């Protein structure tokens, strides 16, 4: 059976070149990057090179602004808790949105338990925050604004440039979770006024369990991981050299391909979308039609529940997701679609297709051949369907 992987926002297949770059660090090059001897120096050199590659991908002015972490979740935790702790004497108010990844949302919830005040900004029907809402939410006690660059479920891109400019004007630290934007949208922290930016390797064809955070020079942030003097005293723990090298290689390749790859994915995605809407009635696009990641498409199939679609596609070899991989398993419709004020029944029938570099037009044609009969069969089974006929 054909296998079509359309769940690249959950994770990606590691590239051959990335694995090749990593392998020596699991075999011959095993020194601790903090050791002064030649074994250590070889590891250190590889970590330094990776730092440069990540810095280059996002246009950081110095590699020292890149701190390696265990992934997007840790980067988000570090940004939010680290700034909240460092600026506690200045204020106790954090502004975020209702559509963040759980890595930010649950970190904010944890801080709220410790006495911090958190504002969760609403979004419009496309999932975009309103700058005026943000302006109104800012108080003299606001110490951090954390708003994602692009949403993992819908692909909707937030107005991060405007948000950053506002934060800068008000002198408030701005963190953006760019885990989904990296490698899909070209941007540069020289022009994007973000102080902190989260990166994860496994979303850009790198290894799982490796990530980084960009920390603009001068940003006040406390470590959340205490121990040795690693990572400029910002993140203790012996460096995960293999993972860091993998992230570096993935970043290097992403930087090279950023001008062509996203465009290719967008064309394939839009081809798939046209096919779906021409073959299947009663669908809706969740998310902004244009201000959106080039690889992401969240489609609602009316009168249906998402898991039944996902499982049927799985039986045909097609991997997609409902909600986000972390939240499937809960009964409530996705918090992102709910925040977009999408009717609960419609939100239940939403499927995320997220494309990656391995996908081809043949893959799209295959999906277009198996999906319509699945939807038809499930709708015939649905008690909600006849009403809408």
């Amino acid at each position: 059976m054909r296998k079509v992987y359309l769940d690249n926002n959950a994770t990606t297949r590691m590239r051959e070149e990335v694995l090749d770059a990593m392998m020596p660090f699991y075999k011959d090059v095993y020194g601790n990057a903090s050791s002064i001897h030649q074994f250590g120096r070889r590891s250190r050199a590889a970590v330094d090179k990776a730092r440069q590659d990540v810095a280059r991908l996002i246009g950081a002015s110095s590699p020292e602004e890149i701190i390696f972490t265990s992934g997007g979740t840790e980067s988000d935790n570090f940004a939010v808790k680290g700034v909240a702790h460092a600026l506690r004497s200045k204020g106790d108010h954090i502004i975020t949105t209702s559509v963040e990844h759980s890595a930010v949302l649950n970190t904010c919830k944890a801080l709220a338990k410790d006495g911090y005040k958190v504002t969760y900004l609403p979004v419009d029907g496309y999932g975009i925050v309103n700058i005026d809402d943000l302006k109104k939410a800012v108080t003299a006690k606001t110490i951090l604004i954390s708003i994602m660059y692009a949403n993992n479920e819908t692909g909707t891109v937030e107005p991060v440039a405007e948000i950053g400019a506002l934060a800068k004007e008000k002198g408030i630290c701005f963190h953006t979770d760019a885990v989904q934007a990296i490698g899909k949208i070209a941007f540069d922290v020289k022009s994007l006024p973000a102080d902190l930016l989260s990166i994860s390797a496994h979303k850009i064809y790198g290894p799982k369990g490796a990530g980084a955070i960009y920390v603009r020079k001068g940003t006040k942030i406390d470590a959340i991981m205490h121990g040795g003097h690693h990572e400029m005293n910002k993140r203790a723990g012996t460096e995960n050299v293999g993972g860091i090298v993998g992230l570096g290689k993935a970043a290097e390749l992403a930087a090279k391909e950023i001008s062509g790859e996203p465009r290719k994915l967008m064309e394939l995605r839009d081809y798939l979308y046209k096919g779906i809407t021409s073959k299947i009635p009663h669908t809706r696009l969740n998310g902004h039609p244009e201000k959106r990641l080039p690889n992401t498409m969240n489609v609602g199939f009316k009168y249906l529940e998402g898991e039944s679609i996902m499982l049927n596609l799985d039986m045909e070899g097609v991997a997609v997701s409902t909600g986000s991989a972390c939240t499937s398993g809960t009964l409530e419709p996705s918090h992102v679609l709910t925040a977009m004020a999408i009717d609960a029944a419609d939100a239940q029938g939403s499927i995320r297709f997220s494309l990656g570099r391995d996908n081809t037009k043949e893959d799209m044609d295959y999906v277009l051949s198996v999906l319509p009969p699945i939807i038809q069969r499930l709708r015939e089974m649905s008690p909600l369907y006849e009403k809408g006929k």
Partner: protein
Amino acid sequence: MEGQYSDKVMEHFRNPRNVGEIADADGIGNVGNPVCGDIMRLYIKVDPKDEIITDAKFKTFGCGAAIATSSMVTELVKGKTIEEALKISNHAVAEALGGLPKIKMHCSVLAEQALVGAINDYLKKHGKPPIAKNFKDEHEA
């Protein structure tokens, strides 16, 4: 494994039995709501002489477990008397499916509720008092 379906669940999900409506049903049970992600409508045909359920069909909006439990409950009730059918618990439905993931147990409750709803609809139509049955709320599981 946590969160994964048994082969039996997948088999019923793939080939659900008794999908559809019964135009002249003797009882219809309607439960659930789209916010929770499942709605079940269960139709039964009852022979009034001996109160045996002769046919059962369903329509379901829901996840894999909701479809599989709907399918299984229609299988279980066919040929049973109303009294026997009322003894079918949600756990019996889940067991017949080789178990359900914990977070999906509420689907089996829904199937039981749909069945009781259909039977009560039948009883009402025949001027008989409805059966009160307590359901375990397994949403918390």
